[in-house]
């Protein structure tokens, strides 16, 4: 297996100097100043329709601002150039494999984008009369049916706006159920390998967080769980498949122990992609689980959002779902927005309106495109691809849990780098020079120098091989002592390594006229 290095030097070299002087550029990489440095002061790039009457005649009793907002305005061509040039400084799924473990960076179908922009979905107001939005409500009902069927749970709260918001919502339902029984349980148990959002969400609902130990084979330590369960425990939050990329093979026992202690079993559904269509969380004993539509159901990550985090709930937790509730009455759908009727025990509203409609359209289009058979294939191919990568890379790198298959992501530690003087960070940055985005690094925290690789099902075998060949080539270079190539990497990205310490020590969070 050879290094993919066609057209690129494999030795470190001084990278291209693309700035800071405006106007500099090399090839397709353009230096691009801030909008504040493009000279648009006092200008606007928008033409307004003529309005009769004097626009100066405001009726605001001196409540107008002291000065116009100090923001430049750019013409359309300047705007297009600015953002297209910036876009070219980003890695993207559409450019190459994006192996961020736990993030599920898969292909985003463009049909979904097209449909979300239909005026009947995009140009609909959340508070217009419900008789005029029956199609939107029907879409929400259909999406709910798919999510309930895929998880085996009887209810779903669509409105949470991202995974962490869904966690919060699920935990609020759990707290509501305990409160209704007069049980003041105040502790949530979370494995040490959990996403940071789990303990953060639990704390925001007013719970104390205690960690559950992990076994040598990367799973929840049942003995420790049993020892920690007690009358103060409200919930056990487990990610399954877990953040080590492993299925919790004792999950049914985890649920049994949790329920026997009077607690609820919350599943972080971030990794649902590995089992969708093959395993229903309800059959594992799960009481509540959020589903990141931007992961499993492929709504675009958009450089950090928006996401959507519907949470499926058991019959016991359903009464505590947030408002609004979608209610069918014969041929008509309506939103119950208050804590009345069937929604009397609701936890209340978790955001102003009904959730991420634009994401619902995309996710439903994705689900309908795959169907029950295709979603099953999604899980199979995601797991197959991860195991293929694990098998190939194990030739040179050290899998954290070599025994048995992984699920949708392959976890390596850094023992294979021992003695090279190269860290996980260095190795990951060197991947950038080879055209790939790094894998998730140093997470989960339970594995030293963790490298978590999630290829997803939308990668071809050719791209997987290109990726594996590249990493194996890099591994060989690391072993051969080419230290500088790693420590200085990346050399071929728009910028070299950034000084994060400086950024944190002297925070500069906005442009100011005297900044440069």
């Amino acid at each position, binding site marked *: 297996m050879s290094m993919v290095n066609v057209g690129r030097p494999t030795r470190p070299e001084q990278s291209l100097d693309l700035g800071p002087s405006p106007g500099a550029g090399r090839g397709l990489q353009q230096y691009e100043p801030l909008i504040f440095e493009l000279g648009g002061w006092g200008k606007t790039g*928008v033409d*307004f329709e003529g309005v009769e009457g004097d626009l100066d005649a405001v009726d605001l009793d001196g*409540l107008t601002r002291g000065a116009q907002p100090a923001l430049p*305005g750019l013409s359309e061509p300047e705007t297009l150039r600015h953002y297209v040039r910036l876009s070219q400084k980003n890695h993207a799924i559409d450019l190459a494999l994006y192996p961020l473990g736990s993030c599920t960076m898969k292909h*985003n179908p463009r049909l979904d984008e097209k449909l979300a922009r239909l005026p009947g979905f995009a140009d609909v107001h959340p*508070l217009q009369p419900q008789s005029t939005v029956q199609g939107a409500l029907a879409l929400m009902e259909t999406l709910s049916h798919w999510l309930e069927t895929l998880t085996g749970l009887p209810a779903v709260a669509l409105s949470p706006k991202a995974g962490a918001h869904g966690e919060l919502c699920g935990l609020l339902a759990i707290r509501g159920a305990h409160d209704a029984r007069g049980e003041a349980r105040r502790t949530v148990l979370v494995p040490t390998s959990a996403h940071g959002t789990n303990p*953060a969400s639990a704390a925001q609902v007013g719970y104390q967080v205690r960690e559950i130990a992990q076994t040598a084979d990367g799973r929840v330590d049942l003995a420790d769980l049993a020892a920690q369960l007690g009358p103060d425990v409200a919930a056990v939050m487990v990610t399954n498949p877990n953040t080590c990329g492993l299925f919790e093979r004792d999950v049914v026992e985890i649920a049994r122990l949790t329920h026997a202690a009077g607690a609820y079993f919350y599943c972080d559904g971030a990794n649902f992609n590995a089992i969708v269509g093959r395993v229903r969380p309800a059959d594992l004993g799960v009481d509540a689980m959020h589903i990141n539509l931007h992961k499993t159901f492929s709504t675009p990550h958009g450089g950090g959002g*928006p996401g959507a985090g519907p949470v499926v709930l058991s019959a016991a937790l359903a009464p505590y779902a947030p408002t609004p509730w979608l209610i069918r009455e014969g041929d008509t759908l309506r939103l119950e927005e208050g804590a009345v009727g069937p929604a009397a025990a609701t936890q209340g509203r978790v955001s102003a309106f009904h959730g991420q409609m634009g994401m619902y359209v995309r996710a439903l289009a994705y689900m309908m495109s795959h169907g029950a058979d295709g979603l099953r294939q999604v899980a199979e*191919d995601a797991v197959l691809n991860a195991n293929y990568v694990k098998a190939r890379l194990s030739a040179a790198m050290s899998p954290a849990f070599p025994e048995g298959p992984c699920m949708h992501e392959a976890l390596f530690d850094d023992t294979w780098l021992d003695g090279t003087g190269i860290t996980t960070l260095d190795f990951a940055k060197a991947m950038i020079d080879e055209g790939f985005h790094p894998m998730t690094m140093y997470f989960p925290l339970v594995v030293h120098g963790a490298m978590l690789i999630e290829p997803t099902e939308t990668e071809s075998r050719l791209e997987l091989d290109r990726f594996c060949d590249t990493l194996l080539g890099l591994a060989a270079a690391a072993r051969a002592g080419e230290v500088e190539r790693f420590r200085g990497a990346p050399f071929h990205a728009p910028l070299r390594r950034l000084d994060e310490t400086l950024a944190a020590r002297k925070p500069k969070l906005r442009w100011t006229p005297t900044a440069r």
Partner: protein
Amino acid sequence: MRYLPLTPDDRTAMLAVIGVDTVDALFVDVPDAARLAGPVDLPHHASEMAVERDLVRMAARNRAAGAGPFFCGAGAYRHHVPASVDHLIQRSEFLTSYTPYQPEIAQGTLQVLFEFQSQVSALTGLPVANASMYDGSTACAEAVLMATRVTRRRKAVLSGGLHPHYAETVHTLAHNAGVEVNALPAAVDAEAAVLAAIDAETACVVVQTPNVFGTVTDVTAIAAAAHAAGALLIVTTTEAVSFGLLKSPGEMGADIAVAEGQSIGNSLNFGGPYVGLFACTEKLMRQAPGRLCGETVDAEGRRGFVLTLSTREQHIRRDKATSNICTNSGLCALAFSIHMSLLGGAGLERLARINHARARRTRDALAAVPGVEILTPRFFNEFAVRLPRPAADVVEALLTRDVVAGVPFSRLAPAAGLDDVLLVCATETTTDGDIAAFASALTAELAR
């Protein structure tokens, strides 16, 4: 299946490399009883054409806001978004990238966030803005939680002018964290009652301007009273276009400003996704929720941007984090920032003046309708009217005359006893014809 590249031959060859015979062997850790033998009971895969046909049919059962005269606001606003905005946010490099945790290959997103933060800072008049929240309501709840951390107090006073859905969201997200939420009664001039509710236990006062009834208020005196009591002032804005014309929260003494940014760059989308704006004073920076993008240099001294001060965040601080937020509204923030770059301060001011003028013209037309009482004396682009009948009934009746008349206040707060109040909003998209149609339909309906 069009999104799955592997062929049956690929799968066979890959299983051989792994060293197993079937894909089932990879699911060996799943308990037997939980392994589904076949597909779940849902339709099988469908062609692009078939999916499009089904969803187009669903979309057709909704009345688009642009289909006729339309006067709904109350937290979501119909504005014109330039075509280039939607084109640019669909660039693969923006649309299909992740949170910019690898700054060397995410400078596009990071520079956008730095510019976005700078724009939000200029609009709100506060020096520190974050990289976005889910929406205005959750940003408001985060601000309340932040104020309780900063002041180590537990009471939050919410003005009766705060959008009732925002007040509910604050209550849901804060009361389990131990915050005592005092939501004052809804009223057109609710801000007047806020001062009396502030005491030595108050962590923060939340006011909205323009408020949910449209009333524009100078909250400078409330800021002074809050500060005198050791509390923080949180100013909420649901209509971001108003920043082009009205005194900014910072000018009036706000410690934290939160806003719904949907109006700039983003469609109505039946309520989401939207983009929450969050800004605060320098002093509060390290207690802010969410991501912050900061300027720095690379190894060769060139300017670049990174996510910074992340020791506040959940992936580092876990249960001690300032918030549980991870995914935010990145792409909506990009849309906001592009639209704002096109507008500039000058364009935003002009847009705001047009909105104000359209709303005044609508007010004048409705004031002439017998039976209608204008309730909001001083407003930006929306105002409240009192009708002689329940507003919800009038809205339904006007639908038959092809006018969407606005939002009945009872939809937001059924128990407020304000069933006869209608919230009416006009924007630059509102034409003279729309206004005339509304006035004439309302005249006819109320004369019945």
